[in-house]
């Protein structure tokens, strides 16, 4: 019964949200943006209320609602604001809110990487392009917006389609997530045993081992080899760490993780986990990402540059022009001066002319090449 009521509420919320978004989109005639945004907020609130009714015991942190509201509200402003610059700024707000959601999901590294990469780099690129690719307003119509910013294309059909997709997604996610059992095994023990230096440092700080005379034992020394090398004797799953001490670190003792002195904060931090996952589990992905970034860089350079190739003939013509210019300037300089003040002026002029010619030479070459 409760599930049925929440399902109905979920779909009603979806429909109300769809109506609100369709109203908020810019279009011909009246576009009640504020009213539309309020109705959309009501609908989205209804959706979250329905989710809460479905499982009252497992509500997320209250910050989740705050960040979700900011993210979705500013996303709505991104698509409904008629001015592109404001859209980009609202997108930054969406980024900040979703990095808040990342922090709630204990993904701190990605939260800050998101802010740096998105809000710091990508959005600045967007703002640059918005500034570059916008007609400067004429003096009599400063407030005018381009026609393609004022009217959106098929807002009602698009919203309807989008929210049918959302309803399908909602249903499928509801069925799918209710079947998933929460994970119970912490993934830390395996990763932590690959960080012997971290364990050693932490144990020294906890005064479980003496930093000067004791160190973590390695397997090869147990076989009587002179060098203390080989894999470390760390068995966190079994709850023991072996420590070597004495002359040549030949003697062993075992520390249990259930020791009261065992450091409680000895855990894999988020960034160590992400680092292991990236470099140990997905090294190929990093290579591919590097290639993609290189391709994007080259592609952007190829796309954005102007045509500057000069073929041999054009180069020859340009050089001849330059030669002729030089000769004419030299001839101009060689002409006898007429009078005091006027002569000084003419010399000044020719000097200027030669300077500007020198500056224009490569440019005229570019134009010749571009025309071909």
């Amino acid at each position, binding site marked *: 019964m409760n599930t049925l009521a929440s399902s109905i509420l979920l779909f009603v919320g979806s429909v109300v949200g769809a109506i609100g978004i369709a109203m908020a989109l810019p279009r011909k005639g009246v576009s009640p943006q504020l009213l539309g945004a309020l109705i959309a907020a009501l609908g989205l609130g209804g959706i979250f209320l329905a989710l809460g009714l479905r499982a009252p015991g497992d509500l997320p942190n209250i910050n989740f609602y705050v960040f979700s509201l900011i993210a979705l509200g500013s996303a709505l402003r*991104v698509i409904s604001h008629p001015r592109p610059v404001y859209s980009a700024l609202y997108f930054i707000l969406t980024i900040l809110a979703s990095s808040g959601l990342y922090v709630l999901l204990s993904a701190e590294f990605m939260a800050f990487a998101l802010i740096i990469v998105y809000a710091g780099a990508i959005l600045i*690129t967007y703002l640059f392009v918005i500034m570059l690719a916008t007609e400067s307003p004429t003096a009599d119509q400063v407030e005018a917006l381009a026609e393609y910013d004022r009217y959106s294309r098929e807002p009602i059909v698009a919203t309807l389609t989008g929210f049918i997709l959302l309803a399908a997604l909602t249903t499928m996610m509801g069925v799918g997530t209710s079947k998933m059992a929460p994970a119970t095994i912490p*993934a830390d023990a395996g990763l932590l045993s690959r960080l012997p230096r971290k364990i050693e440092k932490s144990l020294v700080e906890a005064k479980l081992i003496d930093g000067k005379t004791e160190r973590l034992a390695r397997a090869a020394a147990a076989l009587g080899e002179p060098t203390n090398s080989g894999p470390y004797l760390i068995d966190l799953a079994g709850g023991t760490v072996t420590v070597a001490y004495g002359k040549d670190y030949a003697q062993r003792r075992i520390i249990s993780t259930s020791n009261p002195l065992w450091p409680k904060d000895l855990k894999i931090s988020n960034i160590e986990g992400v680092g292991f996952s990236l470099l140990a589990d997905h090294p190929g992905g990093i290579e591919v990402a590097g290639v993609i970034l290189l391709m994007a860089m080259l592609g952007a350079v190829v796309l954005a540059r102007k045509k500057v190739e000069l073929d041999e003939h054009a180069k020859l013509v340009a050089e001849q022009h330059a030669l002729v210019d030089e000769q004419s300037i030299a001839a101009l300089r060689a002409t006898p001066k007429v009078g005091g003040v006027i002569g000084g002026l003419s010399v000044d002029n020719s000097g200027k002319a030669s300077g500007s010619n020198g500056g224009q030479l490569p440019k005229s070459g570019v134009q010749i090449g571009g025309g071909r």
Partner: protein
Amino acid sequence: MNVLLDGLTLAQGGFPEPMASATLYHYLMTSGMLFVIGLIGFVTRRNLIIMFLCTELMFQAAGIALIAFSRFHLNHTGESFVVFVLTIAAAEAALALALVVLLFRRKESLDAAEWAEMRG
């Protein structure tokens, strides 16, 4: 204050505790709604720059879903995939915006409908 900071484990490391599947549903709904808003924006807006901004919204939605699943399953694979999402987003932004500038130089307009004759 305790309620507010309940889920925060900043700089302590490790996953605090398993997440309930109903909580995962909340995050997935946020992600889904963000995706749908981005999709609607991509279809309806006519400004090329805003259209690409809407694809970034959809990337964000995918990122939230990945991180939520990563938290739910208590491993870091989802987070490292968000690194790749960021990479693709950055590459896409650079290329798409270069294209937009190029198109704007030709027709002095950012209207997507201006390029309707470019159908293959």
